[in-house]
């Protein structure tokens, strides 16, 4: 548990991706089985338990700590579990700290009523970092800034394998992943997962650049709308079906309404959408359904899920990935006509007669509340990863408005000495009719390194107030902000939220008073909800 706790502690403070990978690799290389396998499970949200620990913590505090001192400590620390971990009495004599594998093995079978007693004994055997990590482990959510995919990347790169190779077998193997580590260390063959519904790494698209457009021959490409949902893979076997996100996370549990219809044998690529009365609902509808542990009947009825298929990797046992898109599409259509799974359809192909007609389709996308177009080379096989020259995404043109810089925050990692995160506002009027800025969004990209230096200098020279890492600045700098869309939001004072905002230009020339007004944002709200 000690090494695992130290790993989590370090990860929680480490902003850089490469540094995180290095820390995890060192851990996996130096930690014995089966502990490292359970650690991998914890980092990929693969442990089969999560305990609501709040009441247990309260009870332990009452029994083991002085209440007034705990209250004062809690006020200072701001987090109950962390306070408990820090203030817990140190063991009087030498102790044997529990191993991670022992803790996991017991927790898997643990009765909720027995938790408090075991937890108390474990806490007595751990140091402060260990106690903190244990409480995190119990809740089932580590929150140390590591995605499941990053953890898989760490183990894959340990053995100079690609993450795709790990992802392909991931859903056919289980904690503590002994076979996986044996394979990675060259001691065994790759685990055989044939027959299990596992994730196949996806083929991804490149943004369409000017040069791609110039070189494009329309007859070589299949054209589809770019649907505004999330990319999913359906892997359905004879007895079992799974729904995977684009990163290979199993999201089946959040979509019981879809899973019921997946009684076939195929691995299909498609877009997960909310479709109501034949109409695709805006993306924020889908967000209501993602990452939910509990689903109500009401939610299923209000946000009906739907899959729009556009490719097939396997159909009834036949691997189609080496076939051309044209062939795969024909197989998909032929199969769909027979199987007709519930809550699904096929993404229609568009047939613009010329590049001019294609351009016109693209321009119409925004008016139809569609995100853009997908252009896929007809002769391409299905290649995992992001191969060049095969698939292009052509997003609708961004919208831009001029905003006024209000706050700047220091970045992290390489940017920790730069004010690199910008909150900007639009003009509105306060109750007495005087002009007032309200924050409308935040962006930390879109500028060059040279512009970052200038922005940083401007922020330092125009600071009016400081709040920790944040500075408020005088309303004097106009930023042209590019964004994809505007949505209603009850979480922000302005009542709106921007999608994918980034700084497109710094308007050194423009007086702040001439920046856009909040009304301009409100007019852009996609109101089809």
């Amino acid at each position, binding site marked *: 548990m000690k090494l695992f706790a130290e790993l989590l502690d370090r990860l929680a403070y480490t902003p850089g991706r490469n*540094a995180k990978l290095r820390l995890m690799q060192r851990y996996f290389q130096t930690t014995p089985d089966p502990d490292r396998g359970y650690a991998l499970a914890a980092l990929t949200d693969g442990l089969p338990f999560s305990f609501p620990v709040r009441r247990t913590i309260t009870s332990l505090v009452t029994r083991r700590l002085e209440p007034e*001192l705990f209250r*004062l400590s809690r006020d*200072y620390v701001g*987090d109950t579990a962390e306070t408990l971990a820090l*203030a817990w009495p140190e063991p009087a004599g030498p102790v044997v700290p529990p191993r991670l594998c022992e803790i996991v093995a017991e927790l898997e079978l643990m009765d909720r009523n027995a938790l408090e007693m075991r937890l108390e004994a474990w806490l007595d055997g751990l140091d402060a970092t260990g106690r903190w990590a244990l409480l995190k482990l119990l809740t089932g959510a580590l929150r140390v800034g590591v995605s499941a995919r990053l953890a898989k990347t760490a183990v894959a790169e340990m053995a100079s394998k690609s993450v795709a190779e790990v992802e392909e077998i991931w859903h056919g193997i289980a904690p503590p992943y002994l076979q996986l580590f044996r394979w990675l260390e060259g001691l065994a063959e790759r685990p055989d997962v044939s027959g299990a519904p596992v994730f196949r790494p996806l083929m991804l698209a490149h943004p369409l650049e000017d040069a791609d457009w110039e070189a494009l021959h329309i007859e070589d490409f299949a054209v589809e709308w770019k649907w505004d949902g999330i990319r999913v893979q359906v892997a359905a076997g004879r007895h079992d079906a799974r729904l995977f996100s684009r990163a290979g996370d199993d999201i089946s549990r959040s979509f019981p309404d879809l899973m019921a219809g997946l009684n076939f044998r195929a691995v299909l690529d498609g877009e997960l959408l909310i479709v109501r009365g034949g109409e695709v609902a805006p993306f924020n509808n889908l967000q209501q359904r993602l990452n939910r542990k509990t689903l109500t009947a009401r939610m299923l009825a209000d946000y009906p899920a739907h899959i729009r298929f556009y490719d097939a990797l396997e159909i009834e046992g036949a691997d189609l990935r080496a076939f051309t898109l044209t062939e795969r599409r024909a197989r998909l259509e032929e199969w769909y006509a027979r199987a007709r799974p519930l809550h699904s359809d096929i993404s229609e192909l568009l047939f613009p007669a010329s590049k001019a007609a294609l351009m016109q389709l693209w321009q119409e996308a925004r008016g139809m509340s569609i995100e853009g177009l997908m252009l896929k080379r007809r002769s391409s096989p299905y290649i995992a990863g992001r191969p060049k020259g095969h698939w292009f995404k052509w997003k609708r043109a961004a919208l831009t408005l001029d905003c006024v810089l209000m706050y700047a925050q*220091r970045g992290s990692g390489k940017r920790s*000495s730069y004010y690199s995160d910008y909150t900007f506002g639009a003009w509105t009027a306060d109750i007495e009719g005087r002009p007032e800025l309200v924050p409308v969004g935040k962006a930390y990209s879109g500028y060059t390194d040279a512009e970052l230096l200038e922005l940083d200098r401007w922020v330092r020279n125009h600071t009016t107030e400081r709040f920790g890492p944040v500075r408020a600045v005088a309303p004097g700098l106009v930023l042209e902000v590019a964004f994809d869309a505007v949505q209603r939001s009850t979480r922000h004072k302005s009542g709106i939220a921007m999608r994918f905002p980034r700084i497109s230009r710094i308007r050194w020339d423009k007086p702040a008073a001439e920046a856009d007004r909040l009304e301009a944002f409100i007019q852009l709200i996609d109101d089809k909800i």
Partner: protein
Amino acid sequence: MTAVRFDTWLRPTDKGLYCLAGDFYIDPVRPVARAVVTHGHSDHARPGHHAVLATAETLAVMRLRLGEGGGVVPQALAYGEQLRIGDVDVTLRPAGHILGSAQVVLDYAGQRAVVSGDYKRQPDPTCAPFEIVPCDLFVTEATFGLPVFRHEPDVREISRLLTSVAAFPERTHVIGVYSLGKCQRLIALLRQAGYDKPIWLHGALQSTCDLYEQLGIALGPLALVSEAQQSLAGEIVLCPPSALKDRWSRRLTDPVTALASGWMRVRGRARQYGVELPLVISDHVDWPELIATIEETGAGEIWVTHGREEALVHQIGLMGRRGRALALVGLEEETD
């Protein structure tokens, strides 16, 4: 409990703790005629006093940092040496906080008060260790006066640092340290751990390091970042905490930012400073040491000068002693 109340000869005032029986202040925050100074940190050693009594090391620090303001008539008193001022016998005893730091022991009319200043109990290669002085009244700080504050053994934190240096040889490890005391202690701890490469310094740390060396504390090879000819990848750099966020740090190679401070125990504080490697190394007592020290002095009455006095006074009550929060102004929460 003694018959004479301590207030009749020692009391908190808005200038600091005042000893009526000897007509002098201890760590006064405003200029006074006669001051006894526990140690050289700027919230304790202020400029503009006339006579200043302190250890020779503290006087040297004051001269370095305050120049003319370091006292018109300085007077050195060695640890253990007794001096009569008015009706009071004054003795200085090591406080273990930084080089020259002292507890002020006051004997008056059969009562003994110990004003400890800032102190710690963990061993420190750069200063004399804290001595327990049995007393009737113990005046203590409470910088880390909450049970959540327990400083890890410093060797453990140094080993975490060196492990990180080994794990990221292509990056610079830059550690924010208070320039007086913490800086030199960290260097000495690294030397104890066998680290013998040059340690790179921000310019603001040089003069105090020079002073420590002059006073006999060996620090090994030191070099200035501003004079580095090569990339500092793989090296350890020390700087004042404020420089971590400053444009100064941009010259370092993909730095791992660290901060050596007792506050690093609490995640919220560590995140507030935005550091990647929080090191819990403090020059103050932690909670268990505070309680143990109070016990060991045997004092029936405890005055708490500054810090988180509410929790400590509550704890003192639980221990069956009289606790009193002085809420002295001007004693700051440093980045320690």
